[in-house]
């Protein structure tokens, strides 16, 4: 890692990620920030390795999350298994299309876009690319911002299960897809957290940029 000349790292300075205090870079494992006591690191330790491991886990879980039912409804008249997608379709056909679009974005588009975006970030950082650094930083910021919204469907399942306990009339229970889906959300949130955006800016820009 060769830090960019304008970076604090290139001047031998270290930014505390908790309180923002600059310290002189003494690369010992036991170094703590003189103001807040946080462990200081030049960059998040093993940032890329951790991001990759979490990303791969999330990609694998993404498949059962979409294929397995997230909710099971049983009443005297009917029995039904809902996947993430069939939940969206239900909202659409019942006329609440604004909610259908919202749930579709939060549960289908956002998780997939997040996985792809994090993969792009990890690959380019690994190759020490200086390509579109500003846009990549923006992408990272978006990934961090939208992460929580994928929990929407989990909350819907939780509320439906919790609210509907009519005993003999109807029962709703959570399906195995809900657990897979929640894991994807939590794991991608950790993946985004383990990525260090400063890695985007560390490589020196080439002259032809």
């Amino acid at each position, binding site marked *: 890692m060769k830090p*960019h000349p*304008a*970076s*604090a790292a290139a001047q031998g*300075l270290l*930014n505390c*990620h*908790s*309180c*923002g*205090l*600059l*310290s002189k870079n003494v690369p010992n494992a036991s170094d703590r920030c*003189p*103001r*807040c*006591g946080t462990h200081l690191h030049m960059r998040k330790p093993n940032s890329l390795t951790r991001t990759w491991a979490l990303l791969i886990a999330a990609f694998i879980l993404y498949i059962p999350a979409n294929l397995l039912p997230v909710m099971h409804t049983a009443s005297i008249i009917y029995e039904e298994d809902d996947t993430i997608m069939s939940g969206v379709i*239900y*909202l659409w056909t*019942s006329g609440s299309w604004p*909610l259908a679009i*919202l749930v579709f974005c*939060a549960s289908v588009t956002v998780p997939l876009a997040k996985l792809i975006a994090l993969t792009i970030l990890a690959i380019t950082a690994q190759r020490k690319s200086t390509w579109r*650094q*500003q846009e990549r*930083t*923006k992408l990272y*910021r978006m990934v*961090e911002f939208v*992460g*929580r*919204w994928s*929990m*929407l*469907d*989990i*909350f*819907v399942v*939780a*509320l*439906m*299960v*919790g*609210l*509907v*306990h*009519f005993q003999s*009339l*109807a029962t709703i*229970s*959570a399906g195995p897809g809900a*657990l897979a889906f*929640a894991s994807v959300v*939590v794991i991608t*949130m950790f993946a985004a957290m383990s990525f260090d*955006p*400063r890695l*985007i*800016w*560390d490589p020196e820009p080439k002259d032809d940029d």
Partner: protein
Amino acid sequence: MIDEHLIACHECDLLLRPPQLEPGGVARCPRCNATLFAAPQNSQERTLAFTLGATILFLLANFFPIMGLQIGGTEITCTLTGAALELYNDGMHTLGILVMITTVIVPATQLLIMLYMLLPLSLGIMPPRVPDLLRMLQLLRPWSMVEVFMLGILVSLTKLAAMATVIPGIALWSFALLMLLMTAAFSVFDARQIWRQLPVEGR
């Protein structure tokens, strides 16, 4: 000796001299455009007011029913914690715990930390362990999902309306207001101002 006035961007590590801000202004990184810091007006007073309001709403949201369902002649009501517990008892332990953490435990911890810091600070007293608590606040932030949960309630209501008559409860309105107040509290909260009041050892 380190220049006391320099800071580094937390997103791209650019070394820079922080700009002087007018009250209400926002400082951005010239290289990556990250928000470096903001200087909200009367930050401490406003954060405290929003936090106190949010705490009251939080209690209402958790102890009153979120909605009632009427099916035939029977009516049942349910609280937020009741919904999470039901999930837990239904065998989905992990999901129940996850819902509890993101909608009850984390927001409650955030509010308690804010009150613990801001009440003494408003009297000019620096309470102990503030660095740990500020750090924890930063760590907790992505795991507080009050606004996502609010939307989840809306979607559930729509789905349930097809099965039964839904009667909105006190907690529903409290939750909507809680979402607004917590967002307001965090947007006017200025952690930098508190960090600067803390001593730096051995520099």
